[in-house]
């Protein structure tokens, strides 16, 4: 169908500036792609009129020579970001009619830099899930092996599916325990969770505030750099925002890794990890070695405790954050005779099963008599996990791990919550330590599903992480396109 879909974010940006095509033409091509791939269910809402207006304004800027960094590039937005006058539901029934009167800082940054909004992308409800199956309006499908109905991962499943299916040039995501990196790995694209504090959380629907962080899902590492350049900013409206200038990541694409030390943690090669992933993990180690890096075996001894810590801290913070959905100020209300009954029925009907489970866990671990035993204990072990990383970064510059223990699985196959939680075993530790991590595709497994590898850096070393990821990307030469992608 459209040759325009072949351009990635960076090459499209150059082509737009060279006037090879207009933003309006590019945006139209994406609306055709959205239609063509609608069976994947990635979009919850499209905003075609607004997109067209934004594209026309971009074309004017390009013509006048006043193009901004993302001028005219059509992107999708995870439904966790509040978008002014555009419905924002967090994939939850309780917010099904919520229409924010303000814009999140991250999306405002993107529009200020010229990006064109295509629409809102599905995710797990309140970003709680690893398969996109907890979304109130139903799961999203992975465009890989499209006839097998594979999971796109989660919680940024709509974002990952749309970028892989070429129905968005790039997309925003949020990552609390792996929600950018795991779906990126499942869908064969790049997902970048920056350091906690790099992107403002203002206007992002809160799940677990000490962990939530926004980042891009893109086709390439360069695209991730371009997009994160715009998303990141210091914001006085978020008290955890880092008041630290991020260098222009585009200057770090070709710095190489000669002389850098890459740590290989022994705790990340455990039973239950698929053979094909082990194979590509070993290949990745060799690629980095061949590119001039020194490979150093390291140990992060508290790794196995990361998931238990996460499944105390994240639900605890969620139970507190989600107390705001009370049927009074916004969101859906079910009427009842008394105020308490109104709260209970509204929340009982408005939240899905996984969200209710996590609120219950969170309330339990914070309740009188259990706070010290669970919540305080988890916060202490969280410190030990962070200290493991601090120690290792005394010795090495980056850490290489698989992104996930397995490739994508069929939708509907994992019913037990605990089994589902194990998907995030390799992404949760860096989240707990607040570190930046990037997942990029390096190959396909025997059944033809993408394999993701993760690189982790020390806090605020996004530039070096981009340089390293680029080296790996060039060695892996992952040029496959999903069979379910728009053509």
């Amino acid at each position, binding site marked *: 169908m459209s040759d325009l879909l072949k351009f990635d974010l960076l090459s499209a940006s150059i082509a737009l500036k060279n006037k090879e095509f207009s933003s309006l033409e590019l945006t139209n091509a994406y609306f055709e792609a959205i239609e063509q791939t609608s069976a994947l269910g990635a979009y919850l809402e499209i905003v075609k009129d607004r997109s067209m207006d934004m594209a026309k304004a971009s074309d004017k800027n390009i013509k006048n020579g006043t193009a901004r960094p993302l001028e005219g590039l059509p992107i999708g937005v995870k439904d966790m970001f509040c978008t002014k006058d555009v419905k924002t539901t967090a994939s939850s029934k309780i917010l099904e*009619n*919520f*229409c924010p*009167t303000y814009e999140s800082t991250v999306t405002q940054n993107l529009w200020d830099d010229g990006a064109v909004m295509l629409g809102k992308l599905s995710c797990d409800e309140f970003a709680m899930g690893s398969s996109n199956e907890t979304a109130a309006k139903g799961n999203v499908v992975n465009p890989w092996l499209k006839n097998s109905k594979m999971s796109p991962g989660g919680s940024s499943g709509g974002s990952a599916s749309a970028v892989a299916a070429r129905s968005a040039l790039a997309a925003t995501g949020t990552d609390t325990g792996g929600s950018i990196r795991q779906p990126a790995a499942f869908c064969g694209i790049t997902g970048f969770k920056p350091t*906690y504090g790099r992107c403002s959380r203002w206007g992002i629907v809160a799940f677990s505030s*000490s962990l939530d962080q926004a980042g891009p899902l893109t086709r390439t590492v360069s695209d991730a750099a371009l997009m994160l350049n715009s998303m990141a900013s210091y914001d*006085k409206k978020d*008290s*955890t925002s*880092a*008041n630290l200038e991020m260098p222009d990541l585009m200057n770090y694409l070709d710095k190489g890794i000669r002389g850098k030390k890459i740590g290989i943690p022994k705790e990340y090669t455990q039973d239950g990890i698929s053979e094909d992933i082990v194979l590509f993990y070993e290949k990745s180690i060799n690629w980095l070695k061949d590119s001039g890096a020194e490979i150093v075996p390291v140990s992060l001894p508290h790794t196995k*405790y990361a*998931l*238990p*810590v996460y*499944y*105390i801290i994240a639900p605890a913070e969620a139970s507190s954050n989600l107390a705001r959905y009370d049927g*009074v*100020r*916004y*969101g859906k*209300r079910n*009427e*009842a*005779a*008394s*105020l*308490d*009954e*109104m709260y*209970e*029925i509204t*929340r*009982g009907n408005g939240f899905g099963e996984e969200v*209710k*489970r996590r*609120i*219950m*866990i969170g*309330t*339990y671990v914070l309740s009188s*008599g*259990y706070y010290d*035993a*669970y919540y305080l*204990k*988890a916060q*202490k*072990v*969280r*410190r*030990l996990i*962070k200290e493991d990383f601090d120690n290792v970064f005394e010795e090495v510059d980056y850490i290489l791990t698989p992104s996930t223990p397995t490739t994508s699985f069929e939708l509907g196959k994992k019913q*037990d*919550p*605990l089994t589902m*939680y194990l998907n995030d075993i390799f992404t949760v530790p860096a989240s*707990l*330590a*607040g570190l930046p991590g990037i997942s990029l595709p390096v190959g396909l497994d025997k059944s033809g599903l993408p394999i993701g590898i993760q690189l982790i850096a020390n806090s605020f070393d996004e530039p070096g992480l981009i340089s390293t990821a680029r080296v790996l990307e060039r060695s892996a030469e992952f040029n496959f396109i999903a069979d379910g992608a728009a053509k």
Partner: protein
Amino acid sequence: MSNKESIVDIPTVNKIARLSRLNIPEASKQNLTNDLNNILGFVAQLDEVNTSDVKPLASVTGHKLPLRSDKVTDGNIEDLVLKNAPESSSGFFVVPKVIE
């Protein structure tokens, strides 16, 4: 974690649901109880870790919470504040009657 011998049962689920202001249908209570026990059983492995000299970590930002001067920075947006309310009247949110 000496408190953990108490395994979640249906009365506990009722109590937690009440604290969470969540209406849980009778039919789902047994499954929910099982799920909670599985998850709490899983996180109990933290008992193995000696944390006697470890301070809890609540924030990874590495900076102190910034303060701002106590000034009004916006306001006069009553319409916007009430725009998404399920029910409002005369500039107020409306809730079921709470006093007789």
